């Protein structure tokens, strides 16, 4: 049951991302990407990471994508005629890279027909929080400093002169 759900969500994620990177308007790309991130959050939940799933919805779909949408609307980039879509000549290096990665994946998958099917171990929120604030306490402090510096930098770049 959960395995079927995982493959369905994986398909939704891949299709949403594919629609996002081929969309002709930036706003549509953002909306497709939000769909993809929601299904990715459910995949995180299935993988036994409820906290990361919640943060994915709150921070990624809720804050970062809204920030993108805000900038697109503020700069008035929503019109499709203002945004230059890549020509076919722009796509071929990307398709070459995609083909190389997918080809190596297929070769790897053909080399290992039976993948070992071990169950996943769930990490509880208690374990997660203890590891975060005991073993990685310094990292939390450094991340908070980094967010402060990003705030100062964004204020500096965004001021009127």
């Amino acid at each position: 049951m959960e395995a079927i759900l995982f493959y369905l969500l994986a398909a939704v994620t891949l299709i949403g991302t594919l629609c996002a990177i081929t969309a002709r308007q930036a706003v549509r790309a953002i909306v497709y990407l939000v769909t993809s991130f929601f299904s990715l959050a459910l995949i995180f939940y299935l993988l036994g990471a409820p906290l990361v799933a919640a943060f994915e919805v709150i921070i990624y779909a809720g804050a970062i994508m809204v920030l993108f949408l805000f900038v697109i609307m503020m700069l008035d980039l929503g019109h499709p005629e203002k945004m230059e879509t890549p020509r076919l000549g722009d796509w071929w290096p990307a398709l070459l890279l995609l083909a190389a990665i997918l080809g190596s994946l297929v070769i790897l998958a053909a080399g290992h027909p039976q993948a070992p099917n071990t169950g996943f171990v769930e990490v509880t929120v208690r374990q997660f929080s203890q590891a975060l604030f005991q073993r990685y306490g310094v990292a939390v402090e450094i991340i908070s400093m980094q967010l402060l510096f990003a705030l100062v930098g964004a204020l500096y770049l965004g001021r009127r002169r």
Partner: protein
Amino acid sequence: MTVPLYHVLILAAILFAMGLACTVAWRANVIMMLIGIEIMLNAVMLTFVGGSAQWGMADGQIFSLMLMALTSAEVSLALAMVVYLHRRKQSVNTDDFDSMKG
């Protein structure tokens, strides 16, 4: 859940390849390049969470949390830069910012 880790890694690899393709194909538009970077970072987070679930360690989830904080800092700075560039030349096309001829 009884999905092999292998399939999670394949999904993450395909997502990463899509993000890379987005960044390379839309190299004329700054906003779509940033979206491609977001997709790539999400694929990396999926790899971390899959490894964390496989071995029952919390470290992978902690690193994905750090990655999220890093991404929010990066996106706020990058979008401030986009607003600044748009204020200077009224465009987000990278070809308009070639005055250094690099």
